[in-house]
């Protein structure tokens, strides 16, 4: 907006304002109706949906669902959509920061005098695309598989029986909460533990079994699993040692 456009806007606005109504009581009345509706909505949600409290936080457990509040799903989902490891930082910090800068600087790069949405095609389209993208990511987040899924395929050179054991071990690993701290393929958190996608190439089978029984803190020990269900334990070791 140049000086002339600014002055024209202010002139036009002062006329519109003079033709308007006083804030009290007209706007105040509408605002109060709205405030009442908000209060009713909050009370109704509280009564109908309640406030559940899950089991107590336990830093040593192995099964849990680390899900944020639903309005953070879109941020969380960026991590899943942008998979390559080199780009993780871009997804966690880069893109959100960039979007925030674009958002906060909006009035300083969109400076045209036009205000009607249908005559600001770029801004309106960008706004609608942003809303659709956020809605889509939120939907993905809401319907995403639980974070206890591992999407690794068995190596192609295994025979039928080895594939069965691989799949069983995969299930055990998935249900044991490894993904809380390790990345396996595209799944799981990168850290605090090292990535396991190729652990079989790094460690021999016995070393893997030993680590599972006798891990370095804070990883929980799976000695109990070996004692109580050795078959499952072996399957998990087998699965891990096939990752290379």
């Amino acid at each position, binding site marked *: 907006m140049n000086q002339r456009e600014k002055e024209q806007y202010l002139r036009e606005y002062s006329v*519109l*304002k003079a033709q308007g109504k006083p804030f*009290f009581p007209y706007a105040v009345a509408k605002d109060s109706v709205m405030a009442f509706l908000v209060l009713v909505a*909050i009370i109704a949600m509280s009564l109908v949906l309640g406030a559940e*409290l899950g089991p107590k936080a336990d830093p040593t457990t192995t099964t*849990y669902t680390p*899900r944020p509040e639903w309005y953070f799903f879109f941020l969380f989902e960026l991590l899943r959509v942008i998979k390559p490891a080199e780009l993780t930082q871009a997804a966690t910090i880069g893109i959100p920061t960039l979007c925030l800068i674009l958002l906060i600087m909006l009035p300083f790069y969109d400076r045209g005098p*036009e205000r009607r*949405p249908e005559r600001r095609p770029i801004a309106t389209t960008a706004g609608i695309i942003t809303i659709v993208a956020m809605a889509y990511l939120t939907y993905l987040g809401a319907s995403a598989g639980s974070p206890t899924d591992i999407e690794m395929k068995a190596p192609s050179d295994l025979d039928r029986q080895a594939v069965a054991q691989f799949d069983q071990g995969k299930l055990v690993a998935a249900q044991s909460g490894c993904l809380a701290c390790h990345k396996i393929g595209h799944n799981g958190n990168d850290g605090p533990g090292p990535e396991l996608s190729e652990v079989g190439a790094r460690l021999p089978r016995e070393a893997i079994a030993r680590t599972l029984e006798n891990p370095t803190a804070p990883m929980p020990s799976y000695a109990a699993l070996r004692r109580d269900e050795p078959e499952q334990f072996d399957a998990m070791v087998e699965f891990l040692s096939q990752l290379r």
Partner: protein
Amino acid sequence: MPKLKLPNPIPDQLRPRPQRPGEGNGRKSTKDVVIESGRDAGISVVDWVDERTSLSGAARWTMFRKVPKGTNWFYTLGSATMFAFLSQAVTGVFLAMYYDPSPTRAYESTRHITNEVFLGEFVRGMHKWGATVMMVLIFLHMGRTFFFGAYKYPRELNWVVGVVLLVLTMIMSLTGYLLPFDQRSFWATIVADNINGTGPFLGPYLADFLRAGPEFGATTLARFYSIHMLLVPGAIAALIGVHLYLVAKLGTTAPPWVKAEEPEQLRTEKV
């Protein structure tokens, strides 16, 4: 004479009606006398305060400014957001009476609120769902100002303040999520904190600051609690003040498609 005159734009219905001729019998009834002296007392109290604070000008400036022609229901979203924030503040105060931010007691105190305190689950539910409502309203309000082009000259600064309020509101939600200290909130917070830690330069320091050390420890919860109930709400309240000052100062936009009618006088002059 009372100085506090009612300004003009009071709707007719609300203006005191002068007595019509023939009404009453010349003498005042006891009821009228009581009402009148009550009103006089009210006015003189207001005058007393106003003489020492000069607040009446500011009150008139905010309450009797005009909102432009065409102002519609979309314009209530901002104040609705503020109302949701106030509701959070009130329910939060009551929760704080029972909540204990120590790692050993946090979960038990939340359970106590939910199961034993009178109306405890109701108030916790209002606080929990109020957060969602506030988040929805703030996004709707932002959408309204975006599509109406309300961020343009001269309201750029108000948009900037608004975005900061949005970020602060998200921080509220993030820090509040940990407090019940159940499995879900605990692990979600660990993940959120890890994400923070991957940031360049400041990331690891920020993550350490939030955790109060390299590990998730005994003071982490207290730190989240104080951020959640003192630091950020204080900042939000102050910034809402700035936001609203600017709204009153600059006036709210008219909807972009509303055109000013030419003043009567100009129209006739042209003819």
